[in-house]
C-alpha cells in the first residue's frame, strides 16, 4: 500500500488490486461511521481510494501506512437486482470476444454476482466488477455519440448501466428500465460503491 499526499488536505491511497481497494474503502467507511475518521469525501476508484477534506493528512498517512488492513471486502448487504433485456447491438461482438454463442452472453452475465467497485463518469454510473478476467472486452473503436439511458454495457473488466443518454464507447449488451439516478429519490443513486448487484434476464429476452 502506498499513501500519496494530494494537495494540502487530501490523500490518495494506492493498493495493488480492485479487491484491496474495495476492502480499504469498506474499512474507511467503517472508521468514518464510528467517528475515528473525519473526512469530507471518500472516493474509491479502480485501485485507489481518495480521502479529501482531511484535518491532519500527514498523521493519517503515517497511521494508514502502519495499519494492517483487510485484504478482502466484507460481505455486503442486500443485493440490488436489475431486470435486463439482453438485446444490445454489441451482443454478437461481445460473444465473439468471449468465444461463446450469442445466447451464452446473457447466461454468463446474469449468472455473475457483481459489486459496485466505484462510481464516476456521471451521477449514478457505477463501475461493476465480478466477471472473470477472461471476459474483459475492449471499448468500441468508435464511441457512439448517444448511448440510450438504461443501456447495460461492458468495457475492460467492468459492467455499467448508463443513467441517462450520453456519448459512450462501451459495448452494449442489454437494456433496463431501472432508474439508476433520480435526485428526487432518497437515495438518489440506485448503486453506490460496495453494493452487490445481480442482473436478472427479463422474460422473453
Amino acid at each position, binding site marked *: 500500500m502506498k499513501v500519496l499526499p*494530494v494537495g494540502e488536505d487530501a490523500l490518495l491511497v494506492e493498493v495493488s488490486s480492485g479487491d484491496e481497494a474495495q476492502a480499504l474503502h469498506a474499512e474507511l467507511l467503517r472508521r468514518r461511521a464510528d467517528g475515528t475518521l473525519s473526512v469530507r*469525501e471518500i472516493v474509491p*476508484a479502480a485501485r485507489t481510494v481518495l480521502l479529501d477534506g482531511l484535518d491532519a493528512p500527514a498523521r493519517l498517512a503515517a497511521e494508514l501506512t502502519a495499519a494492517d488492513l483487510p485484504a478482502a471486502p466484507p460481505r455486503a448487504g442486500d443485493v440490488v437486482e436489475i431486470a435486463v433485456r439482453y438485446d444490445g447491438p454489441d451482443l454478437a461482438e461481445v460473444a465473439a470476444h468471449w468465444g461463446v454463442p450469442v445466447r451464452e452472453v446473457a447466461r454468463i452475465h446474469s449468472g455473475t454476482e457483481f459489486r459496485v467497485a466505484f*462510481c464516476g463518469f456521471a451521477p449514478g454510473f457505477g463501475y461493476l466488477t465480478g466477471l472473470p478476467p477472461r471476459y474483459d472486452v475492449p471499448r468500441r473503436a468508435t464511441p457512439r455519440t448517444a448511448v440510450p439511458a438504461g443501456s447495460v454495457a461492458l468495457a475492460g473488466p467492468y459492467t455499467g448501466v448508463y443513467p441517462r443518454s450520453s456519448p459512450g464507447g462501451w459495448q452494449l449488451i442489454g437494456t433496463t428500465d431501472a432508474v439508476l439516478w433520480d435526485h428526487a429519490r432518497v437515495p438518489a443513486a440506485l448503486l453506490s460503491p460496495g453494493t452487490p448487484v445481480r442482473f436478472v434476464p427479463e422474460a422473453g429476452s
Partner: protein
Amino acid sequence: MTDRALAVVRAGALTTVQDAGRPGHAHLGVPRSGALDRPAAGLANRLAGNPPGTAVLETTLDGCAVRPRSTVTVAVTGASCPVTVDGRPAAWGAPVRVPGGALLDVGPAVSGLRAYVAVSGGIAVEPVLGSRSTDLLSGLGPPPLAAGTVLPLGRPAGVHARVDVAPQPAPPAELVLRVTLGPRDGWFTPEAVRAFVSRPYRVSSASNRIGLRTEGPALERAWPGELASEGMVLGAVQVPPDGRPVVFLADHPTTGGYPVIAVVRAADLPAAAQAVPGTPVRFVAVRRR
C-alpha cells in the same frame, strides 16, 4: 408565482445559479460545483444582507440583466463592470436598491471574468442534493439562465449589511498558481516537471467551469502507460494526452484517468476564476505545509 421573483431579460453568455455547491457526493460521481470565486460570492451575499452560502448569479464576461418583481437589495461583485438600474449608473461592490419592475443591468466585465449578483432573499430554485448550483458537467441543478426565465426569490434574512463598499482583489495581470507536486508527478520526465514549474503558460479560451485550460509547453510523460481511473480533487492539475495542464475547477469530474502532476492551493483558485483567456499563468512549486 408570487412577486418574490426575478425575470431574466438578458441572460448573457453564460449565467448560472451558484451557492456553496454539493460536496460530499463525489463517491456517487457528483461534482462539488458551486461559485468559482467563493470570496466574491460571499461578499455579494454580505452586501445584500444574505447569510453565507445563499444562491447568487454567476455571470461570464458580459453580465446579464434581470427585472425583480418587488423591491430588492442587490450587490454585484467579482469581475468589475458597469451596473445600471433603469439605465442610471449604480454602484458596483456595494448594496443597491432595485425597485420592483426596474431593470438591473450588469454590464460586460471591464476586468476579470465572472461577476456575482446577490439578491436579498437569494435565488430560491429547488435545491438538488442540498444545493441550488448549476453543475455544467453532470447537468444537476437549474439550467443556465435564458431570457424569459423567472427565478423565485427567498425571503430576505432581514440582515442589513454593515459595509457600504468593500475592497476586492483586482483580477490578476499574471495568474500565479502555487502548487504542491504530485500525486503523479513521477509519470512525467524530470524535464517536463521542471518546465511545468518554470515556463510561462497562458489561459486558453477553451477554459470553463470544469477546468482552466492552458496553452504552453507540452509536458512529456516518462512512459506511455495508462493510469487506472482515480479520485480527483479541486485544483488538481491534470495533464491530458496533448500535454497541456488543465486546472480542475468546481464542476470537475470526480474521477479521471489522466495523471495529476500537481494540485493548486485552494487560496489561489478564486483568482483563476477571474483570469480571462490570454492571461499569463505561472505555476510555482511550494512545499506542503
